[in-house]
């Protein structure tokens, strides 16, 4: 499973990355988590507001920090 956390580095983006890491650890899944800071790369996914989370190519959330419960639901 490949998880991308998109964000240039604002507090909400940092928070999102932490939430995703916590959720993955809690679910006990092996996932490859990557932080994407490059705007060009972010725009390629059709994402124009950060933070955003993409799991296996599917955009899960744009423009808000998800809760841990949200992330756990996506991981199922």
């Amino acid at each position, binding site marked *: 499973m490949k998880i991308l956390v998109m964000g240039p580095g604002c507090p909400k983006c940092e928070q999102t990355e932490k939430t995703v890491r916590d959720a993955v650890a809690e679910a006990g899944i092996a996932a490859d988590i990557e932080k994407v800071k490059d705007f060009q790369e972010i725009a390629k996914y059709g994402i124009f*507001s950060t933070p955003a989370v993409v799991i296996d190519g599917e955009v899960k959330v744009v423009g808000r920090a998800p809760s841990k419960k949200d992330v756990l639901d996506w991981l199922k």
Partner: protein
Amino acid sequence: MSERNDISCACGAGAPKADKNGAGLGRILLLQVLAVAAWYVLYLQLLPFANWFAYGLLGLDPASHFGAAVQFFVYDTPKVLMLLLLVVYGVGILRSFVTVNWTRSFLAGKRESAGNVMAALLGVVTPFCSCSAVPLFIGFMTAGIPLGVTFSFLIAAPMVNEIALVLLYGLLGWKIAALYFATGITIAVVAGWVMGRMRLEPYVEDWVREIRAGEAADEPRMTWKARFAYALDSVRDIVGRVWKFVVLGIAAGAAIHGYVPEGQLAVIMGGDAWWSVPLSVLLGIPMYTNAAGVIPVVEALLGKGAALGTTLAFMMSVIALSFPEMVILRKVLKPRLIAAFILVVGCGILLVGYLFNAVI
């Protein structure tokens, strides 16, 4: 608008999962109706309570400075915080619909003029933090939204916001709040339109124009439960962050209200000195704070005799022309375009300052 959406929710979003989610959603809606009713009843008690507290319980004299200051503080603090709770929650629900991606596809294909107006109005409610300015700019450009329309959005988004509106309404009355809203939107519309006429497209960084962005991502639809949770979350986040400023600002306001002699600032920021408006704009640009931080200052300035136009100009230059935002935008805009942006918005703010000093 939210009312209409409430109706559509009952038959739309709730339908597929009626069995599982219907009961839960009904309970949440009922709780919300009860909460709003309780809010209203409580709100009506604030003034009698403040009067009773200051003049009855503490036995202060309504005519004394101290009595007036205490009554002001005890009335205004819960009033502004309660208004903030309600407005931030309502805007939170609205924002769960008006996402940046939705705004982008809505504005795509709109012409200038009407586009400028719609962009400015959407800028008020679209969730957007300054670190999102670059992706948002790319999103608008790749959707073919005209540069001037994009700027109407970028100007209105920080300048007119719900917290500033609540604070102005709570501390200075609805007339000044309405004035701030109308002038903020007008500056965003006119400045964006002027920038559109200036043909500044070559001064967008080349790499932005070469980007081939995908279609706006399809986000999974939010359920009504998720929208309410999102609104509640934004209340926690926003009110949690700004309440300190609000209390401090009202305490300062109460002290000014009771003690400071009027007219102290009239010499520097009064309506008579022609240079006071440009000076306050120049002072405002390098300052960086959000609306919650600047409005208590605004109240203090007005209380000490500063002219309304000068003060509004100061406030708008602080929120709309912040230096850090320019640094962020520099990634996508060449210096000449940033200079044009500062110049056009600055002129708009100057005009507003002079206009209000002349009229009021």
